């Protein structure tokens, strides 16, 4: 069923200040009371998630603030210690960036496997985060790389570790007057990069154009026989994109023997909280997550 269209409003902001001002008005941050949720402006960028709901008649009626044209939210910049991605970086821009492919290859892979080309041309990294789907494909990669988010409102700017950003199903640390403006990925030293192993695997019904049943991103830095700087994050196995510190702790500093791998699989099985839904079952998801952990750690032997 199509949405009842007259209930929707949409305006385009051209500058960050213009967008933040509208968001602040809705939140009651400027003169005037806070608006009820339906009268607050909801940011929309490429619209690849929201507009699907819209066409299905499932997007809540209200006011949508198009931020696609805000140049300040674009661009990928490289510094010696980190790389910054504007929130409006599209999946196309992410997948084509040579330095990301080299140092953050799981993010590149996530961009390649998200939707089709025409979706990648519109879908943005900031939107993928703010839409807060636990099945999104870029968040596990971002969690693996210790991403940080810059949130800005008229009240000021603040940085939030991405691992703390999602607080519950579709709940996040973004106030209604804030926009995600930048995603920062800290770069490892050249020596660490040389010894870093990246792993990214999306499991869905089909190879292409399918929402994940399980999405797994992992990385570690080899330290002789041992694993260091172990990062494990999964999608579609919990109400939020989930980093798995307990599983990481089993592996950190360890030699990945069969006993260690089995122990890590056991912990992972209890750290995730998959459910039965239209795409899969909790049993399947748990088994696949544990198998992917094995596959990831098998890379230690290969490198």
């Amino acid at each position, binding site marked *: 069923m199509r949405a009842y*269209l007259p209930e929707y409003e949409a*305006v385009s902001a051209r500058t960050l200040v213009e967008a933040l001002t509208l968001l602040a008005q809705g939140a009651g941050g400027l003169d005037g009371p806070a608006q009820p949720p339906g009268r607050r402006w909801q940011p929309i960028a490429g619209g690849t998630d929201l507009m699907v709901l819209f066409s*299905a008649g499932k997007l809540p009626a209200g006011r949508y603030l198009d931020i696609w044209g805000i140049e300040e939210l674009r661009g990928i910049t490289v510094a010696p210690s980190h790389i910054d991605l504007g929130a409006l970086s599209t999946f196309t821009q992410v997948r084509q960036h040579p330095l990301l492919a080299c140092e953050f290859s799981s993010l590149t892979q996530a961009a390649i496997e998200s939707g089709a080309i*025409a979706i990648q041309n519109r879908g943005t990294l900031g939107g993928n985060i703010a839409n807060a789907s636990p099945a999104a494909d870029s968040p596990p990669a971002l969690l693996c790389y210790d991403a940080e988010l810059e949130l800005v409102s008229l009240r000021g700017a603040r940085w939030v570790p991405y691992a703390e950003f999602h607080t519950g199903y579709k709940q996040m640390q973004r106030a209604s007057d804030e926009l995600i403006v930048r995603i920062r990925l800290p770069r490892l030293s050249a020596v660490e990069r040389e010894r870093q192993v990246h792993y990214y695997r999306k499991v869905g019904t089909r190879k292409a154009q399918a929402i994940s049943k399980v999405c797994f991103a992992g990385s570690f830095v080899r330290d002789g026989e041992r694993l260091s700087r172990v990062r494990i994050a999964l999608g579609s196995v919990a109400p939020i994109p989930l980093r798995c510190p307990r599983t990481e702790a089993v592996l950190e500093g360890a030699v990945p023997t069969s006993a260690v791998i089995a122990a890590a699989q056991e912990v992972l099985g209890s750290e995730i909280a998959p459910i039965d839904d239209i795409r899969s079952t909790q049993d399947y998801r748990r088994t696949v997550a544990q198998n992917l952990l094995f596959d990831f750690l098998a890379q230690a032997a290969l490198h």
Partner: protein
Amino acid sequence: MGAITLKVNGKQVTVDAAPRTLLVELLREPLQLTGTHVGCDTSQCGSCTVLVDGRSIKACTMLAVEAAGTEVTTIEGLAQGGRLHPMQEAFQSCHGLQCGFCTPGMILSAVDCLKQNPTADERDVREWLEGNICRCTGYHNIVKAVLSCRDRMAQSKEG
């Protein structure tokens, strides 16, 4: 209602449209460019694919206001001076269509594909067209058409 100005197939147009109007509705209704089709309404099938500033996008899930100030190319804008675009000719000569419903989106995706990667091989083309679904031909002739267009364009560049 509000005025939305954009360039469609080389011509500047200003359309009065409600803010909630989808790009595909703007093209098909006030502008009467019905070559852009709506298949699934949910960004999956790709039959509504058009080029916005030269890149393929799905027009069924983009608001028209987001296209203000851009340059849009639809299937109607590909032929130049009464001559079909090489991709259209290739689809014709390779029988890259049956019912034709997916064809406009398929062709615009394919045009973007060769523009981004003029030496795309079969695998590249198949991967690129993942977002365009055809229920009739099974893709074989579609891929053949894109590859034949690639070869022809390479030849005409050399010549």
